[in-house]
């Protein structure tokens, strides 16, 4: 599958889905004008990848600093897909990167983490350089 690379904007995150490596990245802020149309193609590609015969392990790295409620919905949909794939035997690791002073992102990470049983969800506080 073709690699997906989307540069960040003021209102949308950096996206890198490297299917050949099983590496996924989402970073930055997310409150797109129309979050459904921003995330729908990404969700579709992820579903195609997870349902393919390609069983390589998945590493999903998120470093979000802000997202609105409709983006949260899209993130939840992605996580449910990953958890389902893990339930079917795929190795999935989700790394939730956040600044240790960022209460909101820490709490969101803890909340999302509750939904994973088969996939491994890791809280990854960043360290200031």
């Amino acid at each position, binding site marked *: 599958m073709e690699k997906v690379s989307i540069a960040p904007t003021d209102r949308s995150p950096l996206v890198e889905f490297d299917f050949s490596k099983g590496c996924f990245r989402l970073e930055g802020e997310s409150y797109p004008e129309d979050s459904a149309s921003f995330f729908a193609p990404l969700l579709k590609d992820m579903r195609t990848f997870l349902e393919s015969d390609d069983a390589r392990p998945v590493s999903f790295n998120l470093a979000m600093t*802000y997202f*609105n*409620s409709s983006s*949260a*919905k899209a993130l939840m949909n992605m996580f449910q897909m990953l958890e389902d794939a893990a339930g079917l035997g795929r190795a999935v690791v989700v790394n939730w990167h956040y600044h240790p*002073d960022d209460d*909101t992102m820490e*709490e969101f990470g803890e*909340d999302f983490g509750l939904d994973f049983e088969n996939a491994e969800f890791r809280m990854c506080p960043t360290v200031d350089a």
Partner: protein
Amino acid sequence: MTTWAETYNDYRRWLNGQGIIFSFTGYLSEDMLTTLGSALKKRMALSETDANVAKRVFSVFVEQVQNIIRYSADRLASAEPPVELSGGMVTVGFDGHRFFVVCGNVVDAARAEPLRERLIHLASLDKEQLKAYYREKLREPAEADSQGASIGLIEIARRSSEPIEYDIVWLGTARNRAFFCIKAFI
């Protein structure tokens, strides 16, 4: 006699006296949200607002403005060029202790009561219950015609330090429309 400039000056001073950072009344669109949001972030950074508070204010602001854009019954639209504008007002201020975000727009009467019930329900929930309710709503398929409004309101309630205040002004003799106003404190 009061000159027109004095009238505007009185209005400006009244806003300043209320601690208003900015107040917008008119037709809102997504590009206005980008611009006003960026101005709000800069203003909070300049006044050395705690980063966690600034993020909560910003989040409440975004959800409130997107609610106006999606649900205001006062709309202007054209297909070509594609324009869609939603009438409403948004005010952000700091009263010396807390930030506040006030939003108001016109809704059809049929929408006012369900919205009021949602706000009453949200006000009855504590922080942990709001968190659980948010998770529950995230897992559900989107409600028809709501475009995710319920989650937006829960997000506002979660980021606020007090229950969301609201008030309704019924419009016209038929009372078939209402100005619905909500105020969140952070």
